[in-house]
């Protein structure tokens, strides 16, 4: 039950984009078409799940036993940067079709604050191993859900009469605000 709650919370209630404001850059930048939004969501979910595992191992097997918690920021960011590189090389070797689909989005993920945020929030919440994996996967799904919804709305927005200065980022943020308000309703699911 605990694990289900963590999963639902990560996908809907404490959505990474709409609650934690993490990953706003790809959320605004890659949400113009549903296809590319889906690929970006897939790439983020993939990297988030792996990051959750690796950052948990580093935190609990190296940093905490040797009282090196103050090195958390430096070690997490270096691990994430090299991890994304490794994942990219690995996918290119193992599955060229998947690489075709995710290719250009993977390098962008290194500088995506959602990945670093995932590692930090999982460690702040003191999740165990299984909880961290569920949290990582759920957060990725939550990001995918938010970015696909956004892309769907923006495809329709192209046809709408938006005031000139609000075109682009302005209206996208206002739409995100209304989405955040709607997602706020999911809080009732956990009480």
């Amino acid at each position, binding site marked *: 039950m605990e694990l289900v709650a963590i999963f639902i919370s990560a996908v809907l209630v404490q959505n990474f984009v*709409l*609650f*934690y*404001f*993490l*990953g*706003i*850059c790809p959320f*605004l930048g890659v949400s113009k078409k549903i296809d590319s939004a889906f690929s970006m969501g897939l790439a983020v979910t993939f990297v988030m799940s792996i990051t959750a595992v690796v950052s948990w191992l580093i935190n609990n097997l190296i940093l905490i036993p040797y009282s090196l918690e*103050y*090195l*958390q*920021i*430096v070690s997490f*960011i*270096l691990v994430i*940067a090299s991890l994304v590189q490794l994942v990219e090389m690995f996918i290119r070797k193992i599955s060229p079709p998947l690489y075709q689909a995710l290719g250009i989005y993977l390098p962008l993920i290194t*500088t*995506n*604050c959602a990945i*670093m*945020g995932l590692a*930090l*929030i999982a460690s*702040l919440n003191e999740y165990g191993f299984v909880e961290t994996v569920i949290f990582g996967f759920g957060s990725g799904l939550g990001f995918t859900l938010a970015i696909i919804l956004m892309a769907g709305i923006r495809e329709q927005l192209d046809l709408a009469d938006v*005031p*000139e*200065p*609000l075109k682009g*980022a*302005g*209206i*996208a*943020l*206002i739409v*995100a*605000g*209304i989405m*955040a*308000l709607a997602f*706020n309703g999911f809080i009732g699911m956990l009480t």
Partner: protein
Amino acid sequence: MSTKSIGAEYLKGLWDENPVFRQLLGMCPTLAVTGTVITGLAMGLATTFVLIFSSLVVSSIKKLIPAQVRIASYIVVIASFVTIADQFLKAYFYPISKAMGPYVPLIVVNCIILGRQEAFASKNSAGRSLIDALGMSSGFILALLVLSTIREILGAGTFLGYQIMGAWFKPWTIMILPAGAFLTLGVLLGIALAIERKTMRN
């Protein structure tokens, strides 16, 4: 190499190249910590500290860094200063550090900082990079203050914790919620663009 005068180098960060309103950088912290003015200000000052010292270090050692590993090197420099800022806040301003949660360590992935290293500090002298860093941080603090002032006054009726709205005022809870952050920033971006269009035409 930049050839602007010192004054212009500083001022460009406030408006022409304002990181939030014009370049759309650093959106995550801008949205996340602006529920109250005090956390917004703390984020602005912490980011200023990291940006200034990273720019000084990167511009001083730019000749020693091989081009292939420059991004990784910048990240290590930035992460070190973020760690110092994080530990300092935890030690001396624990309640604020607690209220800001994961967003202090997340300064490390703030694209304003990495962006300035790549676009400016790696190509200019230490003195000029310092001015650029000061200008960009002032622009960032300005954006955080505008957003957090609007959200705190409308959302709680207070400014820096002091009650400033009369008893007739009913706080708009939405401004404290994440939705309020998105809506306010969206409208502000529109206003900034409208002002820009107007001044361009004249």
